[in-house]
């Protein structure tokens, strides 16, 4: 029961933080642009929707591992992620380059790639 409570609150948390990033920070939506930002080393956090094809998901995770960037698996599909970003289209992957006023980067990175396998 405790886990259920946490997941609902966590979902609201990230939505609120994302909204703040959309307002005050810099971000890139879409697969091609997230890869670009990862290659340039500009991405601070990458968020992936839960219905992205597994090959694409692992590709982005691999890039993020190389770039030592955190990946957050959003608890929702691309439609919901698009809504969370305040857009009227679907978003499967997005990358945050500048969080602005939000603390999404400090509190979110659940899987820090550097801590895992070297």
């Amino acid at each position, binding site marked *: 029961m405790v886990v259920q409570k946490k997941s609902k609150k966590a979902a609201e948390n990230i939505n609120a933080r994302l909204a703040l990033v959309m307002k005050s920070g810099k971000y890139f939506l879409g697969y*091609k642009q997230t*890869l*670009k930002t990862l*290659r*340039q*080393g500009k*991405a*601070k956090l990458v968020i992936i929707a839960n219905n992205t094809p597994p090959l694409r998901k692992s*590709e982005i995770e691999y*890039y993020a*591992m*190389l*770039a*030592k*960037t955190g990946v957050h698996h959003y608890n929702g599909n691309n439609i919901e992620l698009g809504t969370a970003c305040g857009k009227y289209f679907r978003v499967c992957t997005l990358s945050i380059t500048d969080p602005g006023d939000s603390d999404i980067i400090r509190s979110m990175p659940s899987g820090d790639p550097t801590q895992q396998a070297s």
Partner: protein
Amino acid sequence: MGKFMKSGKVVLVLHGRYAGRKAIIIKNHDDGTQDKPYGHCLVAGIDRYPRKVTRKMGKKKIKDRSKMKAFMKVMNYNHLMPTRYSVDINFEKSVVNKDAFRDPALKNKARRDIKGKFEERYKTGKNKWFFQKLRF
């Protein structure tokens, strides 16, 4: 939060004639140039991998089977897949560079230099993964 497309990195070529081959980044241009306004890099890779060698084979047979064909190409980052491996080979910057593409003779010279360096490294037994064909 770090750039990883650096020289020495092993990448897989995804598009083009050399799709499926492994290559090493020699020189990268992250921000593009005047005539190529996108991130691209000069890569040197293996076109024809060396064949498998066993202990039973004689010296000459091993020598023939350890030959490989190399290629050199300027590729868009979007057409490459970076890996976590890197190979540290010093190519002669004067021979292996972007200018080699102007003249077929220069290009051949560069390719021969790359082939020589690859075969040298293959014989030492280091970077085994790079010299193995990617199975897919």
